[in-house]
């Protein structure tokens, strides 16, 4: 009804789209680079395109990997910090750690939500 039309199935639609889009909740991957892209940034290109672009330019040395974390929920984890960290922006590691924490907490929140629905 009325303006509820858009939000009436808000929860259902959200969980449905998330369920369809989620590829892997068993591991978390966070990469933090420094540098600038050589192309105009168009957010509408979507995550995959931009991620590819960053990775391509990383391979060519135009952007550099500062830190990378791969957290696997079977207990296996991998962390990398560049040896050239002094030349990275000072808050880079904080931002990276922040993103790791956010990613882990988001997964937990989502899993708990689904658990509430499944239990």
């Amino acid at each position: 009804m009325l303006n509820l039309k858009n939000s009436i199935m808000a929860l259902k639609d959200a969980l449905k789209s998330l369920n369809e889009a989620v590829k892997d909740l068993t591991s978390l991957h966070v990469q933090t680079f420094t540098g600038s892209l050589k192309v105009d940034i168009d957010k509408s290109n979507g995550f995959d395109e931009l991620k590819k672009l960053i990775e391509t330019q990383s391979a060519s040395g135009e952007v550099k990997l500062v830190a990378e974390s791969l957290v696997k929920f079977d207990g296996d984890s991998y962390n990398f910090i560049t040896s050239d960290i002094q030349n990275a922006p000072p808050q880079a590691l904080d931002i990276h750690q922040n993103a790791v924490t956010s990613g882990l907490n988001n997964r937990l929140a989502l899993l708990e939500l689904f658990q509430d629905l499944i239990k």
Partner: protein
Amino acid sequence: MDFTFPEYSLGTFPLQLPPEEQAGFVDSVLAGVEENGLVNIVPAGEEQAFDLRSQKIRMQTIATRLWLLGYLPQKLSGRQIEKDFRRKGKVQQAIRKFQTEAGLTVDGWVGDETWYALDALVSFESDTQVNRWFAGDTPLPVLQRAAQLRLFSLGLYDEKPDVGFREFPASGFNRFTEVVRLLRLSSQVIGPGFFPNTLGLLFNQDQLVEALAKQNSSAAGSFTVHFFGDRDEQERLVNRFVVNMAKIELWLLGFDVQIDGRDDYSVAGMESRTEVGPLDAALNQYYRDFEEGRLIRAAGQSNRITPAFFISLQKTAGTVTETSDDPEDLSREVAALLDRPGKIEQAWNYIRKRGVRLWDGLRRLWRWVKRLGEKVLGFLEENVFRAFFRYVSKSFKIVRKAVECVAESVKGYLRGFVEAGDPRLTLVHTAADFDYTILLNPAAAPPDLQFCAAAVKRQSEVFQLASRIVGFLIRLLKRILIGPAGWAQLLAELARSLGELKPLYFQLKELTGEAGPH
């Protein structure tokens, strides 16, 4: 016609269905509560603001408040309001005029901003924030109207504002300043006009009660009046003021009295003018219930208003400190009183028939419970109904907001990026499974980087908090809908849950930067 809950059964929670379908069931329950007007919903747009089914209770309050301030020519009945809202007639014109005169966005429908403005100007228990209603040194017309209405309510001006309102003159405050002087209600200079001290006292009902309580002449059990002119006239003025102060306070407690500005009751130490009527009955009940008969003995007679009445009120206000003066702390107690569907339907019948009265009195209910304990809830049934409605509405607002936040967060994550500042400086991309790829430009300054970190954190915290609230709602629904259950049980559970939901909501509100006092 009495109100009955629509489609009484909500059905059972569809545990056998996949999670998305269960989520859809949760959505439909929430939509049902809104569509059937079971809670006070702030409309999201004009179309919803004029939807009769979901907005009926708000419409009554809006129309009554606009009439009180003189934007409508008459008080409209429920049927008239519905008819007028259906064709967006006089009420919409009045809303536009009010918004124009209040300096608000003029859109012709009542959202949060206009609702709170009406509340601040009309309610006895809200903070009027008088400074807000000035353009430079000039009081906005809405403040002038509100001042006239307040003076009328106190019996100190002959009429409330009407549709012919032009300007409220400074001389309109004359009787108020005279009463302040006669009863020494303030140690400050209270001049006739829109002065900060004058308005501060006029719009502070608690302060007026406190000042009256201090006027006790212990020898005679009457008010100490400092006459300085025509004694008969001044006595009439004081009598009228005291009577109407008592009416306001009794009305706020839920008694069946009218705030009409009339001088129709006796005040201790002054000429007798007692009429047997609603005020007499209300005072008697007040003395019997709230003071357990003590005041009847102390004052000697209950057919006149004595300082003891205001001392009793003031003592109650004094038992609660400002920080703990939170009417929402009673949600569990109030929900426990309304634990049967029949009782809840009775409450909704009451609520549907009330307009402006729904929104005042909760603070006083809370104070009396603090002073006398839960037994107060037994003899303030109407206030209990109001409180219940408010608690349910607030809980509902919280869970609705949480669902919206979950949906918005998910959309954000699926969009693939976090709004984390200038993307040429800080670029944060996300995947649906919450992986992050971050690109920091060496040219980014520390504030850019801090903003970026905060944005990532904020988006995640909103999602987590909102998910917790939604999880709470799902568990609640599963608990009560284990078998067929009705709307009444859902409303009772929502009211009962307010205490648990509120801390989460405050955090969520802080993160999302949502405005508004409620």
